[in-house]
């Protein structure tokens, strides 16, 4: 219940109390309802009666609970919930956060992947895979680590493909591209390297004979400005995901998620989710990671600060450094030319808290395929839902969760004039629209082994083996979904289950968008077919469905 509704209730209450002085006696009847005899249903991880395979929950069309939007056009991922619109103050915080999300900070760089949040989260939706090998990655990025999960001593844990020169007014983006050994001298600043993807085609067929074709990506990296990568380097290409709904995921009680963990697969369904435990920078506690493709970040705030630092080169009080490593002299030199240098961070806490608020309350699109007036779902969506549950896709893509108390910002209480820091006795007010909601994100936020393996080689463009020089590329080939990259608790074959809400609107919001972590799947169907490892049984069940059944299941996914 949001603020003005509370006020109205209160005023009703007060006014009706006043009335008794106005005329007549108080004749309000109180009826104490008799509680129904409790049965003992088996409860799910949220303490709710498990979803029925045949009967769709009354609230299932409200994917984000009260934080649901009914807009389903190209703006579907950019909307605010009604409860935010109806509160002038929260509406104002959202509007300001939106502005900051769209606008580059003055002090982006010196090396970076993009200039603003929206630069990757196109229209608040997904980034795109470049159409050609010579087009730079401007809304996806490449993570780096060796076989032990350690960052590269020169390049860090991420390739920033551009220098600030590509983002200066009047310059083409190419002015910031990397150049082989260009920054080795420590004077001239270039982007770090130029990663690109070429696709190979894999073909196959369903048991019923229908053929399909998939795009298998080969990651390549050229033009390293600061010298070679360390030994045993691995690459993981990642498209920026859609940005909405994260405040709700943030508010799911940790114990509910941990209840889904089944490391030893004790129920023998072939699925053994495990939690990625990470450090909350504010509390220092080890808590469950929820955000990014390998669940590296525990909170929206930490995720946002990480993106400002790693993707945009903007320092904050949470990550106060620039993206330059000690070995990157040209980068350090450029960082000293920014407006805000030294101890003064690029983006202040007030702005950061506004962006955090905006990101947290971005609304989740309501389901399509449902008529509220008649309370009827389309037949294909109803059938598809049943097939989805029968195939145990829900073994990882947990349909329903409830949220707990969505605490206010760790940074403090927002107001127009500034930010009041939290104290022991006073913490920022909880966000009502995110609290105690029943939501349908279709994820368990756990890590699952999706199978596959990877190998990195050095090759020329022509495919000949090489070991050094400007023409010698790094090439990573993988089977299946593996990226070979260890990140925190996640192995090179593990991924966090991504949420599926809004799936059917991804290409409405951004026509060029595609699916899976590196955007290899052009359609939702292709994305399903890439599943393996713990998802093998479910995928095979899907493949063995009749063509009509597969279409129903896909119609269900489209309705999310």
């Amino acid at each position, binding site marked *: 219940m949001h603020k*003005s509704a509370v*006020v*109205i209730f209160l*005023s*009703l209450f007060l*006014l*009706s109390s*006043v*009335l008794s002085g*106005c005329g*007549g*006696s*108080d*004749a*309000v009847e109180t009826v104490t309802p008799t509680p129904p005899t409790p049965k003992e249903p088996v409860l799910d991880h949220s303490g709710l009666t498990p979803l029925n395979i045949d009967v769709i929950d009354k609230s299932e069309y409200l994917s984000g609970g009260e934080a649901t939007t*009914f*807009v389903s*056009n190209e*703006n579907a991922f950019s*909307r605010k919930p*009604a409860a935010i*619109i*109806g509160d*002038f*103050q929260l*509406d*104002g*915080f*959202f*509007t300001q956060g939106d*502005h*900051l999300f769209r*606008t*580059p900070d*003055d002090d*982006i760089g010196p090396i970076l992947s993009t*200039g*603003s949040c*929206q*630069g990757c989260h*196109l*229209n608040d939706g997904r980034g*795109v895979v*470049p159409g050609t090998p010579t087009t730079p990655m401007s809304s996806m990025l490449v993570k780096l680590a060796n076989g032990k999960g350690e960052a590269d001593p020169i390049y860090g844990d991420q390739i920033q493909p551009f220098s600030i020169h590509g983002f200066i*007014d*009047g*310059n*083409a*983006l190419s002015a910031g591209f990397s150049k082989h050994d260009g920054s080795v001298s420590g004077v001239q600043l270039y982007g770090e390297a130029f990663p690109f993807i070429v696709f190979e085609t894999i073909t196959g067929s369903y048991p019923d004979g229908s053929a399909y074709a998939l795009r298998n990506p080969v990651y390549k990296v050229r033009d390293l400005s600061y010298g070679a990568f360390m030994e045993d380097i691995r690459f993981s290409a990642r498209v920026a995901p859609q940005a909405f709904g994260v405040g709700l995921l943030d508010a799911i009680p940790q114990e509910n998620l941990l209840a889904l963990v089944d490391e030893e697969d004790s129920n023998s369904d072939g699925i053994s989710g495990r939690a990625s435990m990470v450090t909350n920078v504010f509390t220092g506690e080890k808590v469950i990671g929820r955000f990014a493709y390998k669940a590296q970040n525990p909170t929206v705030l930490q995720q946002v600060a990480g993106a400002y630092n790693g993707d945009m080169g903007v320092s904050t009080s949470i990550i106060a450094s620039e993206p330059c490593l000690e070995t990157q002299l040209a980068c350090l030199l450029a960082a000293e030319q920014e407006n805000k240098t030294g101890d003064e961070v690029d983006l*202040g806490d007030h*702005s950061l808290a506004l962006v955090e608020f905006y990101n947290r309350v971005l609304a989740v699109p*309501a389901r*399509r395929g*449902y*008529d*509220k*007036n008649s309370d009827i779902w389309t037949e294909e969506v109803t059938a598809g839902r049943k097939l989805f549950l029968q195939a145990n896709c829900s073994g990882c893509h947990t349909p329903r969760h409830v949220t707990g108390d969505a605490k206010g910002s760790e940074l403090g209480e927002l107001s*127009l*004039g500034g930010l009041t820091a939290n104290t022991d006795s006073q913490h920022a007010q909880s966000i009502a629209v995110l609290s105690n909601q029943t939501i349908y994100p279709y994820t368990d936020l756990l890590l699952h082994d999706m199978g596959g393996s990877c190998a990195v080689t050095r090759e020329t463009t022509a495919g000949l083996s090489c070991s050094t020089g400007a023409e010698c590329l790094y090439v990573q080939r993988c089977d299946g979904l593996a990226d070979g990259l260890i990140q925190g608790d996640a192995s090179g074959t593990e991924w966090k289950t991504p949420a599926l809400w809004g799936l059917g609107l991804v290409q409405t919001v*951004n026509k060029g968008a595609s699916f899976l972590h590196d955007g290899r799947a052009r359609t939702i169907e292709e994305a399903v077919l890439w599943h393996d490892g713990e998802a093998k049984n479910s995928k095979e069940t899907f493949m063995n469905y009749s063509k009509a059944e597969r279409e129903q299941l896909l119609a269900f996914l489209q309705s999310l």
Partner: protein
Amino acid sequence: MRTIIICNLLLGIKEDMKFSSFSKISAALLVALSLTACVEDGDDGTSGVAGAEGIAGKSGVSTFVTRDDVITTNANIAYAAYADSLISATTLKTVLETFVADPSKVNFALAKQAWLDSREPYGQTEVYRFRQGPIDELKADGTLGKDDAGEGPEGLINAWPLGEAIIDYVEAVDGLSGPESPANAVGMGGIIAAKKDDGTFKYATIDATTLSNLFEHGEDGRNVTTGYHAIEFLLWGQDLNKEAAQSDSKVHDNTPGQRPFSDFNTSGACTSGLGNVMADEICTRRGQYLVTTAELLIKELTRVTEQWEPVSGAHYKTFVAGGDVSLAKILEGMGRLSFGELAGERINVALIENSQEDEHSCFSDNTHRDIFLNAKGVQNSFNAKYVRIDGEVIEGASIYDLLVVEGQHELANKLRGALEATMSAAAVIDTKAKTGTPFDVLMQEGIAQPNIKAVIDALVAQTDDIEAVIIALGVTTNDLRDDTEQTI
């Protein structure tokens, strides 16, 4: 609940009040509110302004002002303000055509003045945003879209901040002239000058189709190709802060953008920036761009104005018949413009980021007028008064009157005072700008700058009072959104 009804019957209800369109909550509240009359009676009670001596009508307000009257006046003012915007835009187009045909220094100054004049009525229309009106929701097919779906012409008319590099050449200033994603850039020199590999123009023809198709190119919100601010950029150019001869372009000076009028010269002295000589065709295309955006502006303003045409306009008709939902819309527009858009996005963000990019009219340094006129629009809605560009005064039933009639004398006076405080604070910024200290210089001092702080504080205070009025009149803005949970 039975008690309430009994009490209400005893008191009686004004016959002209329409209950049919009320939602349950607002109806209940209204009933409850009528009751307050027996406690806090403005007409002839003991607690009203006139005290026990009060007689209905004595406080100077017609006791006959109804909610529907307030709604009708609000709609009539909407028409007048949009009509004035349309008239000013039509004048602007004529002046721009004259300038393009004869790009003299005098005509350049006249063109800029016509743009500034066109902003005067438009700034006062913005209180009609954020309330599901035509400006936000009017779709191409002439129907109104769903709440907050953003399908209306507002962006085409007034979108900002611009990634102005999509339009024309830019110089190194603050790295903020590009689109959100570099992938959505159209090429060096923007639509006006970008060329293909074969040397021909990437966009062969500068016309309405080209500019409309490229609006938010790549679903990129910074690719603003049309509207007031596109024209502003073409007339003033980037505000490069070069006048003060400082070493640091980040220190804002007190002049706006300095585009030379030779940027429109088509007789052998065309430039793209002072001293940067170009072929005449670049200036020809720039002139075409300028006039085309004015044409598009007129087209979109016409669509909105027609919706508000008294008696016949589609939105006018539904709005005046909308009862409490319409009353809630008036107050929602006032509140959301006051806090989120004006105090928040247009003032506060500029301050905390100290960025000219976040200043509303950053090319022309006309932000002080944007602030003043937006605030004025809120006051207009409350007082039900609007002065047209030809001097005619439109006046009618106000929210002030309504509050008094409904026994909310103190609240009526409080919000009146709050709006007055805002206007007086905005007048200070306005005066400073007109006497040599524009908003982009003031804002460098940040949130502690006393004149700016006064405006923000006043806007926050008036928003609180607007919320109080919403509660007092029992028109929860929630009602506005109940109808959106339809078939989807």
